[in-house]
């Protein structure tokens, strides 16, 4: 818990982070940027869990443990996504979204 900072400010920050992530996911044209946007979303959730745990329910550790697992999963997710992106890059020499749309309509 940080003295002088209430839970509202922290949750506002995480919400902003979350929506930056969603916005980035929608608007970005580069696969890596999209991936980073997703990381933002996940991190917003992680912070959310920790903050809620610390401020509201300090006697249990559920939120903190949850965040630990989210981090692990996010790592796996990113590793996998980047490998697929690399594989794609080897074929089309690009990581732009517009180049990945041969399947359409």
């Amino acid at each position: 818990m940080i003295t002088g900072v209430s839970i509202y400010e922290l949750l506002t920050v995480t919400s902003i982070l979350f929506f930056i992530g969603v916005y980035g996911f929608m608007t970005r044209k580069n696969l890596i940027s999209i991936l980073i946007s997703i990381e933002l979303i996940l991190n917003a959730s992680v912070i959310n869990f920790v903050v809620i745990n610390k401020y509201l329910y300090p006697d249990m550790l559920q939120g903190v443990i949850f965040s630990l697992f989210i981090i692990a999963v996010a790592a796996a997710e990113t590793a996998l996504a980047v490998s697929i992106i690399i594989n794609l890059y080897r074929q089309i020499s690009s990581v732009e979204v517009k180049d990945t749309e041969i399947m359409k309509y």
Partner: protein
Amino acid sequence: MNFSNFLLMRHEILLLAIILILLIGEIFIRVEKKSSIIHLAIFLFGIHTVIGFFTIEERSLFGGMFRTNTMIHFFKNVLNIGVLILLLQSADWLKAKIFSENKGSEFFILLFSSLLGMYFMMSSGDFLMFYLGLELSTLPVAALAAFETAKRISSEAGIKLILSAALASGVSLFGISMLYATSGSIYFDSITELITSSNLTLLGMVLFFAGLAFKISLVPFHFWTADVYEGAPISIASYLSVISKGAAVFILMILLFTVLKPLMHVWDNMVYVIAIATMFMGNLFALRQQNMKRFLAFSSIAQAGFILLGLITGSQLGTATIVYFVMIYIFSNLAAFGVVQAISLQTGKEKMNDYEGLYRTNPNLSLIMMLALFSLAGIPPLAGFFGKFFLFTAAASKGYYLLVFLAVVNVTISLYYYLLVVRAMFLRKSENPIPYFKNTLYMRLGLIIAFVGILVIGLYSPLYDYIYQLSSVFN
């Protein structure tokens, strides 16, 4: 700690053991003999499926993180059978295309890992286990979707799948964190007691819904479906549309019917709208598809819309009909995908036009395909009819006649495009039809099991009674 508790996790432990055995096999078997792993995997999984049928007691483990009961157990068995059929159907493809690149065992390992994730997801007693299960069931599939590394669309499918999956799970997580904030627990049981209908809870629920809506490919989150199905190997498309969707529907149902039951007055409206949107979107887009995989993708979106009709009831009737429908759907869709797979493997043709005159050269395949499609469309006496009828009955039991009407209109629309395939196979004659070919034993076995399922499940009513009786645990 009592180690006999682990016996309750029989499915999970056995599957994990199989994964490890295959991993060891992959490490130590020489490259020339690698293809024997196919037989090993199918054999082991067959044993696993059989063992799964032994009864199990009802308990929860790890302080409520993991729970099991007869319904969950039953559904795991259903998924097992589905995966077994899938394995049988994809054995040839693996042998021909994948083992030559020396990555066949990875296919099994990843597939089983994903299935393991689904087990955990279905057995989860808290949101942590649920989340881990969800991710474990999604991530390997993304790898599998990109499995044919030499094909560009395969990679595209993989990246689309994983990016959408990650977004959905992220959004879902954010929702879970809100539920956690209002209830102070991530355990389902405690949440059920503590949950109140505050704005934050509702927001949390809606966000949470997104994660599973993605897996079931409900409408705002269906964009990935067609592309991924088209790009991914057929086995994986089949897996995504059948097993993955089935498991997600199941857990969504459990969560809505137990944990989020106090909020039912909110989510039933949501489900109502999404159901209509999903059915229409899926069906209308399916009308103009030419690629069989895309076609089945949109068809499966539409089917997901039908499933929501059972979800909206929030009653035991809903549970039973959903499980029943999903089971039937698994068999029907597997049969359809099996035929597509067989043809694609032999001739590389996946377009609807290529199927013209199929009946005259391959009567058995086209017969199975036709019955599978009719089952999907809901034509008696095939199983699909009963599944759909009961879903509609369930929805009508709550007075949603308009919804049922729209759904039945959609059944008619869907019949149109299913008949397009039947038309190509039966009505048309082709200059250049797909030549006659003989399927291998595995493929035939896979198709026959699915075929028998389609024919029998609907007519054999004790099965439904059994499901209904099981479904009382969630209400």
